[in-house]
């Protein structure tokens, strides 16, 4: 079964440092997303990306965050200057384009980001 892969599985970084979380979505998918989940809390939407641009972003996704699809396969989330409260599990997801209404979102295994 095709899957979304994320690297690294765990990243520890010092406050103020930049981090890049990487994702390889499923190859024929066209919609890409980042979500995060702080320990013990809800899964929260960060950003959606389609046709090489951001489609929607939440209030969490401020100027410290950016996304990029640098080539045909990778989808990255960059946090420019990490804060302690950025510690969370970050999930990448992808979705096949519609045509078929029942297009589920496939999530990766996540990257656990710990800011110290």
């Amino acid at each position: 079964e095709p899957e979304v892969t994320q690297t690294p599985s765990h990243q520890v970084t010092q406050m103020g440092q930049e981090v890049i979380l990487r994702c390889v979505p499923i190859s024929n998918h066209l919609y890409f997303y980042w979500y995060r989940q702080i320990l013990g809390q809800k899964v929260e939407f960060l950003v959606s990306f389609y046709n090489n641009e951001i489609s929607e972003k939440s209030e969490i996704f401020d100027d410290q965050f950016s996304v990029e699809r640098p080539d045909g396969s990778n989808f990255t989330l960059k946090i420019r200057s990490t804060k302690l409260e950025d510690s969370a599990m970050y999930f990448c997801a992808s979705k096949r384009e519609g045509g078929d209404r029942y297009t589920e979102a496939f999530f990766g295994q996540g990257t656990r980001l710990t800011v110290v």
Partner: protein
Amino acid sequence: LAKTTQPISMDSYEGQEVNITCSHNNIATNDYITWYQQFPSQGPRFIIQGYKTKVTNEVASLFIPADRKSSTLSLPRVSLSDTAVYYCLVGDINRGSTLGRLYFGRGTQLTVWP
């Protein structure tokens, strides 16, 4: 977006059928009902989706009454590995300006005991 309400937690024993009900009184005509499963430290995983009546796949059934104000996820003969958080999501998740943004609530923590 229609708000969803589901139990915070449920307990069951291996081999039993588990039914998790979600209420969504303000569901809109274009909304679909989708259930996801999440194991600890893993990403959510799609289980099933439906619009009305009954949908069944290899892992679960989804029952939706005619008024669509609630839905019930049914897991037949659960095993220990079904212990997870189950999320009920309602929304026009496939089309529209949100382009598939998913809104997760707190979900239902299902614990299966031996």
